[in-house]
């Protein structure tokens, strides 16, 4: 296979577009699960702001000192608000883990799945993906240890090395390498999921082992595939931030909301775009067996 395989990324985007119902469902659940957290924040902030003229400092611009003072009000509990957001984020994570089987099945078949088929696929693969998640967490432990070591070493260099900036560059380079390692692990487990769905595999350790070999043998092209799509997400975020700072009036809620939702949709889209592209990449290497034809009369 040629390095880079640009066709896969574009084809993946087209696949996401054709099966966009998948994306809209994921986005819809993301929005729905976040709404209670926002509602709770609304009630909390509203208890202070709704009858106070001091809120104007947060409407016309964003006075950070006013916001910090707001968080210190007894009616507002930042810890509880954050916990609420985290709980709902965790629920979305569980949903996404559950939905991944159905998403990959929809991309594998490149067909609209009925609700029954979709959720059957979700349910069928859910516990296998839970097992994969546990393996993923184990795989992340050494990454965490390396990150801690890097932090300690770079801190010591920053403090003691003759060259002032050495610690900084070591930390920057180290975290870059750690990021590549994280991407590699993510790719490995992405492929394991794709393979599990493609082959109907039940043995997750075997799937993991084969996915590892596949990832290692094709790391360059897979990394490039993943990176390009990731760059689209970051570019979109940067563009949205620029538009928000330059053009969205400080008092605007509607425009600000639309821009925020566009960013969320874009990031979810790039994630499913990666899954679609991985699925297509796998199918090109391991085409599915053609269905058995009926014997001729």
């Amino acid at each position: 296979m040629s390095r880079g395989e640009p066709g896969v990324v574009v084809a993946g985007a087209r696949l996401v577009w054709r099966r966009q119902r998948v994306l809209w469902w994921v986005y819809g659940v993301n929005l729905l699960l976040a709404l209670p957290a926002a509602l709770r924040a609304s009630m909390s902030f509203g208890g202070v702001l709704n009858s106070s003229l001091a809120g104007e400092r947060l409407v016309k611009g964003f006075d950070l000192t006013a916001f910090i003072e707001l968080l210190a009000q007894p009616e507002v509990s930042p810890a509880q608000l954050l916990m609420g957001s985290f709980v709902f984020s965790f629920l979305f994570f569980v949903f996404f883990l559950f939905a991944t089987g159905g998403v990959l099945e929809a991309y594998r078949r490149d067909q609209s799945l009925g609700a029954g088929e979709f959720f059957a696929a979700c349910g069928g693969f859910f516990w296998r993906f839970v097992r994969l998640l546990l393996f993923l967490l184990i795989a992340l432990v050494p990454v965490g240890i390396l990150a801690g070591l890097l932090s300690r070493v770079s801190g010591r260099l920053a403090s003691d090395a003759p060259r002032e900036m050495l610690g900084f560059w070591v930390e920057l380079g180290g975290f870059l390498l750690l990021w590549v390692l994280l991407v590699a692990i993510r790719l490995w487990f992405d492929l394991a999921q794709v393979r599990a769905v493609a082959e109907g595999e039940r043995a997750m350790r075997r799937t993991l082992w084969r996915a590892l070999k596949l990832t290692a043998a094709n790391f360059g092209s897979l990394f490039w595939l993943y990176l390009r799509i990731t760059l689209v997400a970051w570019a979109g975020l940067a563009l949205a931030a620029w538009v928000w700072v330059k053009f969205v009036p400080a008092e605007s809620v509607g425009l600000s909301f639309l821009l925020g939702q566009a960013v969320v949709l874009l990031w979810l889209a790039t994630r499913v775009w990666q899954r679609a592209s991985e699925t297509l990449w796998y199918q090109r290497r391991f085409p599915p067996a053609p269905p058995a034809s009926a014997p001729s009369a």
Partner: protein
Amino acid sequence: MQPRLRAVPPKVFALVSVLAAAALVAAAAPAPELPPPAASTFTPDTPLSERVVAYQIEARLDTEKKTLEATETLTYRNRTGRPLDLFAFHLYLNAFQPQSTFMREVRQGSPDFEWKEKYRGSIEVTRLEVVGQGDLTGKMEFIQPDDGNPDDRTVFQVRLPRPVPHGGEVQFKIAFRAQLPEVLARTGYKRDFFMVGQWFPKVGVWWRGAWNCHQFHRNTEFFADFGTYDVKVTLPQGTVVGATGVEVGRQPNPDGTQTLAFRAEDVHDFVWTADPSFRVVEDSFTGGLGPVKIRLLMQPGHLAQAPRYLQALQGTLRLYDRWFGPYPYTQITVVDPPHGGFGAGGMEYPMLITASTTWWMPAGLLLPEIVVEHEFGHQYWYGMVATNEFEDAWLDEGINAYVETKVMAALYGEETSVLNLWGMTAGDARLSRLQYRAVPDTDPMTRSAYEFMSGGAYGTVTYAKTATVLRTLESLIGEETLRRALQTYFQRYRFTHPTEEDFLRTVEEVSGQNLGWFFDQAVRGTHVLDYQVRTLRSDRADWHEENPPEEKKGETLFRSFVVVHRKGDFIFPVEVEVKFDNGETVREHWDGRDRWVRFRYEKKARVVSAEIDPDHKVWLDTNLFNNSRTRESHRRATRKLAQYWLFLTQFLAQWLAWLA
């Protein structure tokens, strides 16, 4: 991680995590014109101060061992009005030992602080001779006037065989050896960088009939008499050196060292710094007394920040010159510490300040500017108006913090003087207020620095509360009057050691008002100021009728009332602005003496809103959100914040889903 030991406004370190690119905010409108300062008494040949002390010091720095070998000749002029036979000296470097009072207090405030040998510093007097009275080395006695800690050796006293008469002079010849610590708090080294402050035996101040010579504490700074310094420093060639005073001589030595000579007049301290990596950036400012040479000693990695330092310094020099009086010295040096040496940053010395920045500092985060402004401000409040930093820390830190908010507002905008990034703004005065309201009631401003409840309380009260008190004082006497009072205070007390009463009396004198009631609560007390609009209501006057006519705007009579409640114990007169739905506005005045007040109205209009302090001048109020109340809900702010929270939750969720 080293605990925060530097007495720089904590808010300076509060915003370093914000990233962005943003435009620099244009300067705000220029400050209003003040009457010109009184005719200057400065002439090049006239001493500016009493010159109680004259130091001549020769020191040799061993850059490998981080030690100093030095000799000091101190000529002390007895102007105390009585004969003196007892003298007290500071040995500040002895604070950097594990059992010193300083280190005990560090550990008390930061239980996770770990002692390391590299933090050890010391100063040992190897010989002390008094000219005409012999060798008194054996007569030196360590004392601990503040806490009786026998392990603290930051103060010693020596009794002379014969007293020095009033008007007479005594000359001390001292040999000493100093070990510099790795920089933890102001003084020390980091790699090849040396910041050498509080490094020589320094005589105390005879003040109010006794020696004022405190031990060195975690929260205290310094207090010394004005005089002259002639200092020679020998160190390796190729080292770039900065110091208090001006360089008056330089001589290369055959052994690869160089000896630099400095002279400083009418200052009360002498510091110097050395680093072969310094990059020198020079500029000048022309003030009321002529040109001032500006010398920046920058780290190579921070060179791009030099224009920011210069712009802030030039602006501050200009405003101080205009508002208070000219900077009288011919030079100001700004030192930029290296990474890891930030313990030396954010500090003031006569004619030399240390700043602080990192290799990457977005233009919309004005931390370098604030540090430069603040530390230069100390040239006036501490450097020239030399208050006792042990006992009256608020008189230099607090007044300086207040003027800092004015200067930063004038140069960078009232609401954008600290932060202007990604649509977020923060003004220096508001940050000060925020910091103050976190700890509003633990210690009075007049407390001695080493007696505060904690380091945090010290920082909050001496810097932020004082600045906020003075901002509130503006509402009583006017901004112009307060500035005039500060100008008068500066011009009257520069090159002396004024006290709390000198400052407060000057404010009352210039304002023509008796402000004792305010100072008793704000300065000497710990009263908390908090007013709230507790209730706001409009009722139809015909509420009791069985079939009242339909409400008609402008015709139906309403009885309205507004209840304002004083929640805190600080009594302060306030204005209350009440608005009605017919466009009418009423301003009420309340002296705040009672706990609450009810304003009643009978109008053909409903009350719409009530706001305490509508001009937003009472900065001491600890809660701005309860200062107003509206009859109807306005959900714009809530909707905006809820929408932000929604986005953050969604974004967090999709990040978490990366694990799935």
